[in-house]
């Protein structure tokens, strides 16, 4: 039995892969900000902003395969080349090298001597903001080209030992454990080189004081905001930390070097699709552009409302639909059957929003809270449940064992309710699993009418404000719920009916 369930679950994996591809294609429908507003290459500030916009959606990465994944070394090489030539991109590259900071130094400073003096000076000048961030050097050392070049050569002679992973790891571990100005100073001196370790600790530490120190260091070296106060409450802590982690998720390649095997995995991992899928799997769904909250947290807050409502509606429609179906099957061909059939058809044909609107108009005075939305939603699946129950009941009532029970003198009521109903419920129970996602879809309409703050309500607000991250997340969530329900329903069918289990096992084996 376990093997059967497992096999069915594994069969869902290709479907989930397809689902992720569909949603990924959905994201590629979105306009590229670069195409929308072409910017002169001289306007550095605008270019940086545009690049950030594009990178937040991984538009700088190739779609499915990255033959030449970037890391800090590649970026530094490129920027050095631009600076040496001094072309239009030079100013942009100056800005970029200053931003890369300490992480770029191990790839830049050792090669400084190979570069002709004039260009060397230009590169050294570009590094001035880094030195200011580190708090070293005098202004004259940084602003005069030849002195700056000398300053950085000396810096590298003195300090290259600090730019090693183990040293940085130790420092970050210490600063995580306790407050220490000395170590903070040490980390400042390696600048962004410490970011990888800082982010690693940020993701694992729970201590608010340590988080405050870590975010302070990270904000200092990157020049970003987002410093956590030691007194911050849990929600604020979560928001800030997840903001940092999602920033790191986007920008990691700027600050780390890919070595050996990492290069191979990066050719797959450093792609738009992989970044997006991995982000979705680990809950890094980005930030809502509507209110700046992490999408994942918003989903956690909104989804229970919608899923709960759908579950209640499923319960209600089963409790109403099954007796109707049983009654119609029992009195088959009787006016009762025809009457319920007509009602079922009508309920099936009335749009959910119309039912919801009518219930909302006539029931608003009663102030019944959650009852009316659930009632409105339950009409979505009511007719399907009743219809399925009727069909399976008719089939079971015609079977031999039912006839035997009657021949032995069992009362009609007992035959219907005890002998037949148990077996006739099996297909209905599995249909219920398939109906759940339909109800989730219907909930979008019902929530809007009754102003219930679930994912549907939120989605419609997101459409108004073009909050794409949320829409993508919700689409994905709905598809995953649907697939899970389908798998669960198939497994349940196998559990309840051994014949199905055997047939499916045989089929998949062949």
């Amino acid at each position, binding site marked *: 039995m376990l093997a059967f369930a497992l096999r069915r679950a594994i069969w869902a994996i*290709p*479907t989930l892969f*397809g*689902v992720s*591809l*569909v*949603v990924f294609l*959905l994201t590629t*429908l*979105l306009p590229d900000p670069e195409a929308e507003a072409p910017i002169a290459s001289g306007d550095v500030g605008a270019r940086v902003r545009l690049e950030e916009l594009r990178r937040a959606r991984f538009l700088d990465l190739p779609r499915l395969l990255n033959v030449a994944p970037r890391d800090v070394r590649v970026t530094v090489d490129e920027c050095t080349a631009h600076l040496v030539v001094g072309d239009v991109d030079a100013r942009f590259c100056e800005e970029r090298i200053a931003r890369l900071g300490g992480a770029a130094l191990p790839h830049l400073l050792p090669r400084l001597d190979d570069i002709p003096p004039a260009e060397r000076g230009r590169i050294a000048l570009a590094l001035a903001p880094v030195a200011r961030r580190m708090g070293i050097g005098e202004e004259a050392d940084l602003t005069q080209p030849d002195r700056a070049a000398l300053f950085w050569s000396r810096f590298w002679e003195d300090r290259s030992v600090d730019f090693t992973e183990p040293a940085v790891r130790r420092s970050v571990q210490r600063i995580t454990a306790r407050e220490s100005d000395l170590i903070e100073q040490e980390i400042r001196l390696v600048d962004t080189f410490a970011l990888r370790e800082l982010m690693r600790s940020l993701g694992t530490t729970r201590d608010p004081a340590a988080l405050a120190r870590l975010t302070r260091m990270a904000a200092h070296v990157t020049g970003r905001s987002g410093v956590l106060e030691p007194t911050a409450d849990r929600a604020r802590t979560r928001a800030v930390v997840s903001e940092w982690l999602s920033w790191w998720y986007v920008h990691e390649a700027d600050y780390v070097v890919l070595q050996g095997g990492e290069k191979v995995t990066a050719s797959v991992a450093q792609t738009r699709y992989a970044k997006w899928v991995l982000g979705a799997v680990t809950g890094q769904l980005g930030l809502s552009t509507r209110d700046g909250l992490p999408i994942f947290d918003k989903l956690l807050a909104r989804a229970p409302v919608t899923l709960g409502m759908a579950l209640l509606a499923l319960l209600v429609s089963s409790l109403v639909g099954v007796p109707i179906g049983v009654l119609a099957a029992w*009195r*088959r*061909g009787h006016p009762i059957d025809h009457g319920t*059939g007509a009602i079922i*058809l*009508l*309920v*099936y*044909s*009335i*749009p*959910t*929003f*119309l039912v919801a*609107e009518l219930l909302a108009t006539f029931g608003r005075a009663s102030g019944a809270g959650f009852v009316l939305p659930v009632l409105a939603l339950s009409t979505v699946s009511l*007719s*399907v449940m009743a*219809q*399925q129950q*009727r069909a399976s009941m*008719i*089939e079971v*009532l*015609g079977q*031999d064992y039912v*006839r035997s029970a*009657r021949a032995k003198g069992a009362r*009609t009521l007992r035959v219907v309710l005890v002998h037949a109903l148990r077996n006739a419920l099996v*297909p209905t129970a599995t249909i219920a699993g398939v109906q759940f996602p*339909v109800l989730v*879809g*219907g909930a979008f*309409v019902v929530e*809007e*009418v009754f102003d219930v703050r679930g994912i549907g309500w939120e*989605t*419609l607000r*997101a*459409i108004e404000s073009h909050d*794409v991250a949320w*829409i*993508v997340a919700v689409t994905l969530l*709905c598809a995953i719920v*649907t*697939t899970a329900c*389908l798998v669960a329903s*198939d497994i349940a*069918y196998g559990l309840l009916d051994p014949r*199905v289990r055997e047939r499916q096992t045989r*089929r998949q084996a062949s």
Partner: protein
Amino acid sequence: MSDRSSSPPRRSREPKASLPADDGRESIPLLLARPAHEPPPSSQDPAALLAGSRRPKTTPPQAPPPLAGIDWTDNPGAVTLRLGKIGFLVGALLLMLSIFADVVASDLPIACKVHGTVFVLPNVTRPHQLETMDRRVLAAEADWTIRPIVAHGPLLAPGDERVPLLAPTSAHPLGTDREGRDVFARVVHGTRSYLVFALAAVFASLALGVFLGAIAGLFGGAADALVGRIVESVSAFPPLVLVLGIQAAVPEPTLLTLFLAIALTRWPEIARLVRGEVMLASTRDYVLAARALGASPLRVLWRHIMPNVRAPLVVAGSVGVSTVVLTEASLDFLRVGAPAGAASWGETMSQFRDAPSAWWLLAFPGVLLVVTIVAYNLMGEALRNALDPRSR
């Protein structure tokens, strides 16, 4: 997974001949009931005659539960067929209404003579000199006019009074909406946008579904697996959610993107259906015979396999129209569907949310919407009964 049983398990139960449900009144035939494995009795069957004066009944094999929720197979066809005829009639009427929407409700007359010029069907051709003319001036200066049933278009025309939320009167038989536009005209013209849109979307999804389904069914193997995965992936999304997502993601949602989105959500069902039918038909002797006679695969597909697929497709298309209309109305109601200004039932109904006392905004488009959906569902049901002998 190359046979019929590869459809979802709940549909693959073997057809069983079964007796009708017995209640107290029918206890005698129970004793004479035939064993389940015997062929169903025909009217000449002595066993059936023995069963008393009751008309011999055979219960059909269990078809998948019909979509529309009616399955009055006790008297196969009769009730369904009659209802289907009504549905067909109503559906045809709605189609007529959508074609002649301009004759029924338009701000311009059907024909008129103004300043010595005779205009024929200006409500369709919309000549410039009348289009820009104040409608009251037009009425006053025309020598004669043949007016449509309601003299308002779905939009405000020059010279129209802007009276928002007017209750039904003789000038505005179904009242006006919040913009002062005539609800009757908007409902009538909404029929056009809904039905034309639904038919187009259904045809597009049919084309795509038939193409991919036939490929999967004919070639099997890798093609089948690939199409199967695509079908599963697309149908993993609740249709409304996927359409919402697409409408939100495209830079400028238009009627075309809506059309593509809806067609995209509809085709997997068709592909699944066609694939099953093609696979089933491919194993038949007459197909083998055609192949043996040297017919090309395309000819086999077109002449010998497709005729089997046609009937279920007609049914799926008919039910599909009602589904698409429902989806479009829901989207319009949520104000994410048709572009602003276009006549649409959902948009008119959505105005009711801001003006809960204007019942006519909800009632008339709502009734028409339900009537449309019921009509196409009934039609599909009757067609299923008439065209698809296996489900009977």
